[in-house]
């Protein structure tokens, strides 16, 4: 089998990066982000990036690392509220920003990966989001057209992989990762664990290996928590 496994994040990105490129990065907030690959992208110094990611990380973690170093020229996101450096650069005109409704962003990535260049949605009709977009009526209701998104490289975080590149995600760390995995010209994945051939149940693979070109196993995941909310310890189940 064609070897997809690379030694580390820097090796996995080698030859793929260029100034002005478009990068998708999975994750919701800091949950399920490709920590190692983002750090390697920062270390690469690649500039003028267009980053497609639901959020922009925090000041010192996630995509915030690339904001610190001013490697990002434009963000396509649904929510960037956690990041002061983002605010500073945006208000200073140093950063472009395109807000997409979260569902539109997810569907645009899916569409890009599925060969769908445009689709209609009710989301955003009558709002700023609809400005300049094609409007069309279906069954007496108005919809707007949104376009598919692809990326030069997609950075994805999964839980487990096998050598064929089949992926399984864990809990809400799945989020944008599976659709972004389909939308990268090259998709680079980091996982916490590599398992042997046949160890993933074929009925339960979230991302088939065809979407994965390069793969690394990350170590010592930080997995930072943004809002640690707990209750008093009592049994509970519903």
């Amino acid at each position: 089998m064609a070897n997809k496994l690379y030694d580390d994040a820097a090796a996995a990105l080698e030859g793929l990066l260029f100034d002005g490129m478009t990068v998708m990065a999975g994750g919701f907030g800091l949950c399920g982000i490709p920590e190692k690959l983002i750090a390697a992208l920062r270390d690469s110094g690649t500039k003028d990036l267009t980053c497609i990611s639901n959020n922009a990380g925090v000041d010192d973690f996630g995509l915030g690392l690339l904001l610190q170093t001013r490697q990002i020229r434009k963000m396509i996101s649904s929510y960037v509220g956690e990041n002061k450096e983002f605010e500073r650069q945006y208000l200073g005109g140093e950063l472009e920003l395109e807000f997409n409704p979260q569902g539109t962003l997810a569907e645009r990535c899916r569409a890009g990966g599925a060969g769908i260049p445009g689709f209609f949605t009710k989301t955003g009709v009558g709002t700023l989001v609809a400005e300049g977009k094609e409007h069309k009526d279906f069954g007496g209701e108005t919809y707007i057209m949104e376009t598919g998104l692809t990326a030069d490289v997609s950075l994805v975080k999964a839980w487990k992989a096998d050598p064929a590149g089949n992926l399984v995600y864990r809990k809400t760390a799945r989020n944008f990762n599976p659709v972004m995995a389909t939308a990268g010209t090259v998709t680079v994945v980091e996982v916490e664990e590599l398992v042997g051939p046949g160890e993933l149940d074929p009925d339960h693979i979230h991302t088939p290996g065809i979407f994965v070109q390069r793969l690394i196993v990350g170590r010592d995941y930080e997995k930072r928590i943004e809002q640690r909310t707990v209750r008093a310890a009592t049994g509970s189940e519903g």
Partner: protein
Amino acid sequence: MPWTRDQMAERAAKELEDGFYVNLGIGMPTLVANYIGEDIDVTLQSENGMLGMGPFPADDEVDADLINAGKQTITELKRTSYFSSADSFAMIRGGHIDLSILGAMEVAENGDIANWMIPGKMVKGMGGAMDLVAGVKKIIVLMDHTNKKGESKFLKKCSLPLTGTNVVDMIVTDLGVFQRPDHDSKFRLIELAPDVSVEEVREKTEADIDVAV
């Protein structure tokens, strides 16, 4: 006496029905989960990719891979399923969620809602709010009746950039409850907080409403 935030949440929770699938917005709407009646069974959806959201974890149960749309750590239940953001919003936009309870900066008498952007201030983004108001079967807004300056937030016309047009079905404020049976009808005041008068509501409401209390 106007309702407190918890009382508003408690009132909104009465709109939940047995078997409902519900998405609760970030902030005050999250409190609604504390008042779900024990005689009904409601499944909470979190738009980051989870159906069947449980309570906050005990300290030793905290899992960085398990958060809600407010980025808070949570737990799973015996009915829980996880899915991608695309599948999550297919669920929302396809009309499969029965009810969403959201906060708002402004609501207009025609059901328009503005809850994501104040011009001149740093914009954080709409997140999933535009998808929710466009796709969910019933939208309830939970908000203070007036802003910090005492001005009505229930208006003839929203002044802020919209999140959706003609989408709100019910509004629960600290002063009372406003409802309309369909998207062609006027909102009607159907309930008042204790010791709040119709006159006070009229005075603090710019929107043209009917009164049915």
